[in-house]
């Protein structure tokens, strides 16, 4: 055990829950007239489109091939005809190729789909790579990479992330309530094939109903259930590892370097479903919420469904939206248009009728950002360094460790965009090649 860096518990901050959709059973799959499938829905190299205009595709047909190891296949989520393959502006400003498919509304599955034979860790990793599954907690890291830890890393703990610490989002919670068997079977499979001695499902203690449902299924399974305090960002990978195992992921390293693999509850459920049926990741359980939405709910959505169509399926807007957020309010991305599609790693769409643009005041050096920082950095000093152009200094204060959880900005009484400054500092350091 001595080889791991020990750490104290990461306490996090308190944010409002707003989990109003937690009791609403997931509505059935909606049928969009067309879907837009960007080739970059994951961390890593974008996939390469492998269909052309006019091609007939089915649910589960590969439309984009992974480009290298850290990449993921993209599959059609509807049956229909490819309308076009064209560049698409992502919310982060980058351009990515996207395959647009006109749906025939039939959802005919790809005839060639077969449930894969999976008896070894290698086969599991290959199968998951073929399924296009990426981290469904939000980051979208290709899952087969996580399932192929470097040979020099001994994995002794599998953590299943059901913390769902972001306000509003309840899709993971609904997943636990509605299909706990898929989750438990998925965990058993990964645990067995990767020969991981310890498996822990980590929940926040504001979800006792989920714990009640899981507990009977975990009897004699060797899987632990751990209730962690409700705090943000409890579900951030490094925070979760620290609070479950007491180990810190070394700076610039991956969870495997702390002997841990972390998978989201939705991810293990998707793995189980793929192994059983051979159907890749083509639809998602998504929380639709926010005060501008008529019918906040959880709903099954084909990947690629335009957000505006999804909102229409939820009764449309009841107030003009000022902000459309893909993901939670702490780390989600503000969309520039309702044309943007739901991605594989999308777990929520929020439409807010109010924006919190209060104007920025002078920093009073209260150090609330220092107390709030998950990674124990000194945002107050890093922001000053960035503003004075001292990128080397910001790098020396480990700004590259920032996980962009948003706690500093949330806590700031002067309403300064500290997280954004951290991002800009990281970008500047990368561009300048500062080591």
């Amino acid at each position, binding site marked *: 055990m001595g080889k791991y860096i020990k750490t104290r518990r990461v306490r996090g901050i308190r944010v409002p829950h707003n989990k109003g959709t937690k009791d609403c059973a997931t509505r059935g799959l909606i049928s969009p007239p067309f879907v837009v499938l960007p080739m970059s829905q994951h961390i890593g190299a974008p996939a390469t489109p492998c269909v052309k205009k006019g091609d007939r595709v089915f649910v589960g047909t590969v439309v984009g091939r992974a480009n290298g190891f850290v990449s993921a296949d993209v599959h059609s989520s509807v049956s229909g005809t490819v309308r076009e393959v064209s560049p698409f502006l992502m919310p982060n400003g980058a351009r990515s190729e996207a395959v647009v498919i006109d749906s025939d509304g039939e959802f005919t599955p790809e005839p060639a789909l077969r449930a894969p034979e999976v008896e070894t860790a290698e086969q599991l990793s290959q199968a998951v790579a073929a399924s296009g599954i990426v981290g469904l907690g939000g980051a979208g890291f290709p899952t087969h990479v996580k399932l192929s830890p470097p040979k020099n890393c001994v994995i002794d703990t599998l953590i299943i992330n059901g913390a769902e610490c972001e306000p509003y989002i309840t899709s993971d919670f609904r997943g636990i309530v509605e299909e706990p068997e898929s989750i438990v079977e998925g965990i058993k499979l990964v645990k067995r094939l990767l020969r991981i001695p310890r498996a822990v499902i980590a929940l926040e203690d504001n979800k006792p109903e989920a714990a009640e449902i899981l507990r009977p299924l975990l009897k004699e399974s060797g899987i632990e259930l751990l209730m962690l305090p409700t705090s943000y960002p409890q579900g951030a990978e490094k925070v979760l590892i620290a609070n479950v195992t007491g180990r810190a992921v070394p700076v610039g390293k991956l969870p495997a370097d702390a002997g841990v693999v972390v998978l989201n509850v939705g991810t293990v459920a998707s793995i189980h479903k793929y192994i059983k049926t051979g159907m890749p990741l083509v639809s998602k359980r998504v929380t639709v919420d926010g005060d501008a939405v008529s019918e906040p709910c959880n709903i099954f959505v084909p990947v690629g469904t335009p957000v505006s169509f999804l909102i229409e399926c939820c009764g449309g807007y009841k107030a003009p939206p*000022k902000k459309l957020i893909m993901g939670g309010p*702490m780390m989600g*991305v503000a969309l520039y*248009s309702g044309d943007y599609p739901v991605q594989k790693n999308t777990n929520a769409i929020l439409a807010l009728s109010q924006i919190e643009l209060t104007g920025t005041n002078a920093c*009073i050096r209260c150090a609330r950002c220092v107390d709030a920082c998950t*990674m124990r950095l000194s945002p107050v000093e890093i922001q000053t360094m960035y503003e004075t152009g001292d990128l080397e200094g910001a790098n020396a204060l480990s700004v590259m*460790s920032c996980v962009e959880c*948003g706690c500093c900005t949330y806590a700031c*009484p002067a309403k300064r965009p500290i997280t954004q400054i951290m991002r800009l500092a990281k970008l500047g350091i990368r561009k300048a090649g500062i080591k």
Partner: protein
Amino acid sequence: MTNELYVTSSPHIHSSKTTRAIMLDVLIALAPAAAVSVVLFGARALLLEVFCVALCVALEALWCRLRRIPVTVGDLSAAVTGLLLAFNLPAGLPLWQAAVGCAVAIIVVKMLFGGIGCNFVNPALAGRVVMAVSFAGTMTEYAYPATAEGLVASATPLGIIKDGGSVDALTLFLGNHGGVLGEVSCAAILAGGIYLVARRVIKPVTPVVFILGEILFAALFGCPHPIEAALSGGLFLGAVFMATDYVTTPYTDLGKAVFGLGCGLITALIRTFANSTEGVSYSILLMNLAVPYINDLCRRRPFGKEAGK
């Protein structure tokens, strides 16, 4: 509809705490001590407090107007500075002298360095020290409450203790003795401090370390009544309201503890060995100057970084 969407960097929600709310909490926390000062020293205390607050706010507003920058008095920090400065004055001080202190605090120490968040020493304390050396006579003509009895009716507790006498601790704690406006009642200051801690405006670490450190060092240096001495003078006022000023104190808990300990040590040194009976202002101002170094040495170790690397 969609062309009215706002796009900003996450997070998209913020806590309800604002600079103004924090400063309002500080003003509320100062209210008990202000009330005690009016009870003990009469209407003249109220006049000084209102005068200093109004002048500090007016000076900051005027400065912003003249420089054609946004007027920042709405954050209430100038009002806090004004009240804290008044708390450091004896009740009988001429108003024009108080005005000089306000001008030094707001114009010289705060605005010339860039306004809120940019001053490197505490404005109220710097104003007080300038007044203490400029108006040495009137600044030490302490007022004595009519209700005070015995030695404390004509001398300050610190003077009495330094001359070898002793003062009843309960009298000191409640504040029925002479001194400057805001410092006399430890009970009132403590009530304000507890309010600030409960509202999470300040952390208790600095005041606790400062006060305990001062008692410890005073005892080590041979003070016969270290606890009574700690209850006398400006120690509680300084520890609770000045040494916890955000701008001029360290960021981390460890830094705050180092800061408090340094303040305690310097206060005890001045009170024991210097000509002056009081050393709280100087100790805090000196430690203010050390804050950049303390911050540099007391940063938290980033998550996932190994010790010593």
